[in-house]
């Protein structure tokens, strides 16, 4: 148990506690001083607190109900069963129908795919136009757009409902996609604007001199070099749309309720004894896609948060 002096997990350029004398530092680094033990104890305890809900969710979803009542919330399952998962996916009642939350899953897919593709495209065009083209009033619009990202949707929701009802699309797939495009636009625009701000103006000027127009430069020069930010934007937008509850509840209509709304219906419409195991299986199923995206993409996910939050 001797921790190495240089931690390879951390970027080597950023050691914060620079040792003065190498010999003393080596001693410090090797020995588990009480202070080091304290640091690890704190981090370990914190990690347990953060992992506890995930652990409880998983073990609860694998136990029969009798075992949950008898064995306590933290006990490992004796006879692990996937029956609650099957129930949650295709048997449990969500409101009137009892077909599980698979319908909600497919609705969420139907909502998320166009909402992500369209919002990223609009965000990329916005960012490109804001960074390279001088359009009157564009920066003022962008400023108001960013403010809109911080305003609670309750401020805009009722007029939007009325307008969509007038247009005859309220409570449909196009309505919910449109609303996601509207409320996803600030962050997506910000991401692309910041990304294109790092692209040298000379590159753009050269393309202009070669006779490239607005769309040609966008499609042939900018878009091909935007892959990293498209990935980041995709992760953020998929997570955001998938996890949305309130917009889906209001705008999607009964036939296209997303998975989060269906999940909440499952838990609220339970009659009689609460099926904690089925509830937890349904919760895991709903959280699975963003969690998988997070565990697979790790650093990209963090980069998206940082790019979207800090540089604002």
């Amino acid at each position, binding site marked *: 148990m001797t921790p190495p002096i240089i931690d390879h*997990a951390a970027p080597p350029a950023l050691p914060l506690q620079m040792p003065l004398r190498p010999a003393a530092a080596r001693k410090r680094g090797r020995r588990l001083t009480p202070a*080091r033990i304290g640091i690890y104890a704190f*981090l370990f305890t914190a990690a347990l607190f953060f992992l506890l809900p995930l652990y409880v969710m998983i073990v609860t979803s694998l136990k029969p109900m009798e075992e949950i009542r008898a064995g306590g919330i933290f006990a490992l399952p004796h006879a692990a069963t996937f029956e609650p998962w099957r129930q949650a996916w295709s048997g449990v009642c969500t409101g009137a129908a009892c077909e599980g939350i698979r319908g909600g899953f497919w609705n969420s897919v139907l909502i998320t795919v166009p909402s992500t593709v369209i919002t990223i495209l609009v965000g990329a065009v916005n960012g490109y*136009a804001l960074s390279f083209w001088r359009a009157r009033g*564009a920066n003022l619009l962008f400023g108001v*757009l960013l403010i809109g990202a911080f305003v*609670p949707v309750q401020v805009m929701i009722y007029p939007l409902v009325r307008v969509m009802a007038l247009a005859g699309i309220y409570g449909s797939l196009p309505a919910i996609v449109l609303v996601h495009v509207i409320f996803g636009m600030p962050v997506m625009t910000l991401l692309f604007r910041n990304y294109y701000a790092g692209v040298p103006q000379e590159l753009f000027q050269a393309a202009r001199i070669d006779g490239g127009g607005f769309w040609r430069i966008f499609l042939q020069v900018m878009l091909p070099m935007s892959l990293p930010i498209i990935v980041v934007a995709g992760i953020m937008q998929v997570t955001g749309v998938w996890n949305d509850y309130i917009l889906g509840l209001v705008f999607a209509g009964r036939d296209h309720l997303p998975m989060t709304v269906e999940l909440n219906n499952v838990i609220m419409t339970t009659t009689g004894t609460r099926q904690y195991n089925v509830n937890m299986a349904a919760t895991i199923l709903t959280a699975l896609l963003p969690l998988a995206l997070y565990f697979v993409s790790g650093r990209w996910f963090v980069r998206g948060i940082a790019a979207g939050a800090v540089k604002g």
Partner: protein
Amino acid sequence: MKRTFARITSRMSKYIALSPMALTVIVAYVGAALWTLRISLTSSRTFPSGGYIGLAQYQRLFDNERWMLSLHNLALYGVLFIVACLAIGFLLAVFIDQRVRGEGVLRTVFLYPYAMSFVATGLVWQWLLTPGDGIDGALRAWGWHGLQLDWIVRQDMVMYTIVIATVWQASGLVMALMLAGLRGIDPDIWKAARLDGIPAWRVYAQVVLPMLWPTIATVLLLLSTAVVKLYDAVVAMTQGGPGTASEVPTKFIMDHLFLRSNVGLASAGAVVLLVPVLALLAPYAYARHRKEAT
């Protein structure tokens, strides 16, 4: 001739390209907000109507016990949520920054709740805090009979359960942003502090923390707007209950818009919510404007 033509289409193109953004801002943001303001000055019930009644809805709103309770709950929640997120996030970032082993794993563990929806978060914590079957039962099975973890069904404690669940969800984000801030601090400061024999905790408190101000300001803005937007977690965890003990303003607005057909009152509530958000954003907009002007 051809060149000028290309120039004109190019000029047209940029405005066409920006038209979705313009429509979004002018119609869906500003237009919708102004319409809400307009409705809040009328006696609208199920549908918007023209009956102008001045500020009467606002008077009704602030005479409404449920609205006042919602505001009170939000204030209590906001203070606790922000303080807890900042404290936990900062501590985690500082401790992770001590060149510990397994930094990547720890960061992943602290941030994964942020990938979960508020609905899923609320439902998990509802189950964990269920009296009898949840943690409460486990504590009793281990022989701790004195402690009763029934906060979620107690009117005076229920807001704290929402704080716990949402802090669990959001403090990893604070940790990630703070850690990025810490890594951006000049290592020479630590060298200088060592030379002067200043203990590490004092360097953190008196030198590093002030230097992290821009990061803290960003975090504060994100957390406080999250406070005003609090809705999903409450709906999933308590549905505003027990009784009305965990009602929040966003839920008050949604209930009056879609369940109680009192659009006028709900719109007044929405306008009231808009005020603190704009007040929070004003200093940022000002700083941004000055930065761009210079």
